[in-house]
């Protein structure tokens, strides 16, 4: 990134660029955090990315980081980097509202594990991000919450998609270099998709979920939203690792996610999965063109492309996932449903109403079906180094198109497939539609294949340069 970017606005830097400049002492965390807070002050009244902004604590942390870096160098690449958290991550002494009147005054006593890891690495918390209520939803408008819905950073007339929507807005708008979200059916990847970001849902169990308000125990995954794969790799090096407090946390060693990121894709086998956007849905022609463009990019970069297929439709994955998500949510939040139902927004209420219709036998059947679907999905994915498939299959809707169109946009996505199977998946920017809004694709890898996934995504990002394009001021 040229130094002119620093001169104009350091908040526009991605995580890796900012970290490199901080390491060279060419950029102070104080300058960076001040720039970020200035942007929030200028723009967030219109975008609604935040529920809580921590201006004074962030500046104090930036001054401390600057002093430590000047005295002894940075602790690592995240030292002095501004980050934000979806407001379902616990922050000790700071309220965690999940955008709900039912939890508006909730102040946790401890930090979520991932927040604590970022703090230990020297990251600077800028704020807590707006979200769909309780971090869940099917695409409904959710216009009856105590905070207005986040507006798209590329154009506030457009939808923001998925429950980590405030985090997507914040990273795209330059309010932070790293945002952490959570993904039960696509809620990291869809907000990243509509903002041209890299949204990574790691392997189920790779990142701790301790201190994140659960939505569905067997589906929830935490994940970073960043400008590009290199940023996500640096974040994963800090975030990943076993957490004994999370019973699903994997004990597998943590590799260096950034070490091989420049290795390119020559010789790698990339599966091309077309059924979701060619047979299951009539994808938008601009999405299909972006998909074919990506295939051509990988071919030109020397990857070996193989067509792969799956026996199940996106709708089948969704049918499998929905009762699991609903029944687990009702079990988790049963006390809130009994005691605070009138305080909840209509969309969340409707989710719990639907959940009440799921019997125990149907829940168990869904989990048995899921094991079968995960096995067939894994058989296809493990034959490749990575798989290319669609993410959002229609163009980003305008707010004026209404709730039915938002639900259609969310349903016409292939993200839930990887929540059912547990594979790592990232949404990447695949270009821009004729309205100037981002298009997206998904890259998927075998279990714990995040380093290869990030390597493939990085090769694509560098070849296309889409990640360099930023929303207009």
């Amino acid at each position: 990134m040229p130094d002119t970017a620093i001169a104009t606005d350091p908040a526009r830097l991605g995580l890796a660029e900012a970290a490199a400049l901080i390491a060279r002492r060419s950029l102070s965390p104080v300058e960076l955090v001040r720039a970020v807070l200035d942007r929030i002050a200028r723009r967030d009244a219109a975008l609604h990315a935040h529920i809580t902004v921590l201006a004074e604590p962030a500046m104090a942390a930036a001054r401390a980081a600057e002093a430590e870096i000047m005295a002894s160098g940075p602790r690592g690449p995240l030292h002095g980097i501004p980050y934000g958290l979806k407001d379902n991550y616990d922050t000790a002494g700071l309220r965690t509202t999940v955008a709900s009147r039912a939890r508006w005054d909730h102040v946790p006593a401890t930090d979520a594990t991932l927040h604590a890891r970022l703090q230990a690495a020297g990251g600077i918390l800028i704020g807590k991000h707006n979200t769909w209520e309780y971090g869940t939803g099917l695409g409904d408008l959710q216009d009856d919450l105590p905070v207005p819905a986040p507006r798209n950073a590329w154009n506030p007339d457009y939808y923001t998609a998925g429950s980590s929507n405030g985090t997507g807005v914040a990273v795209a708008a330059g309010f932070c270099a790293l945002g952490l979200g959570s993904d039960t059916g696509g809620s990291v990847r869809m907000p990243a998709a509509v903002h041209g970001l890299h949204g990574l849902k790691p392997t189920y169990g790779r990142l701790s979920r301790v201190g994140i308000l659960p939505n569905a125990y067997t589906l929830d995954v935490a994940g970073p939203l960043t400008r590009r794969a290199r940023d996500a790799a640096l974040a994963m090096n800090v975030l990943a690792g076993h957490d004994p407090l999370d019973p699903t946390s994997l004990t597998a060693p943590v590799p260096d996610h950034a070490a091989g990121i420049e290795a390119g894709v020559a010789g790698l086998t990339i599966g091309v999965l077309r059924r979701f956007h060619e047979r299951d849905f009539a994808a938008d022609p601009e999405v299909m063109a972006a998909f074919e463009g990506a295939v051509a990019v990988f071919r030109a970069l020397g990857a070996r492309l193989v067509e792969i297929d799956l026996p199940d439709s996106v709708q089948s994955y969704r049918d499998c996932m929905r009762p699991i998500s609903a029944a687990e949510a009702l079990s988790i939040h049963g006390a809130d449903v009994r005691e605070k139902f009138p305080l909840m927004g209509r969309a969340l209420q409707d989710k719990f109403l639907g959940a009440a219709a799921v019997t125990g036998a149907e829940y168990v059947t869904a989990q048995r079906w899921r094991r079968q679907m995960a096995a067939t999905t894994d058989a296809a994915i493990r034959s490749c180094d990575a798989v290319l498939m669609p993410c959002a299959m229609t163009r980003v809707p305008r707010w004026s198109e209404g709730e039915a169109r938002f639900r259609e946009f969310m349903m016409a996505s292939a993200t839930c497939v990887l929540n059912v199977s547990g594979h790592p998946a990232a949404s990447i920017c695949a270009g821009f539609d004729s309205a100037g809004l981002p298009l997206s694709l998904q890259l998927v890898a075998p279990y714990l294949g995040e380093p290869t996934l990030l390597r493939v995504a990085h090769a694509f990002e560098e070849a296309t340069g889409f990640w360099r394009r930023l929303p207009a001021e």
Partner: protein
Amino acid sequence: MMPGPKDAEALALLLRAGIETADHALVARMVIAAEAMRAGLDRQPRDLPAGLEPASAFVVRP
């Protein structure tokens, strides 16, 4: 007016979730939400092998 069978079932589901209500609008929403969920549940496979255990099976870590 006596509630119809769908309303009665919806009231029972609401009670099971711990929501005691006489709000007809909420009962009507429960009917709609249950029907939407049932549409997906009705597509569950009926022939899964008996040996296929749930994906979230209990695990002992000695």
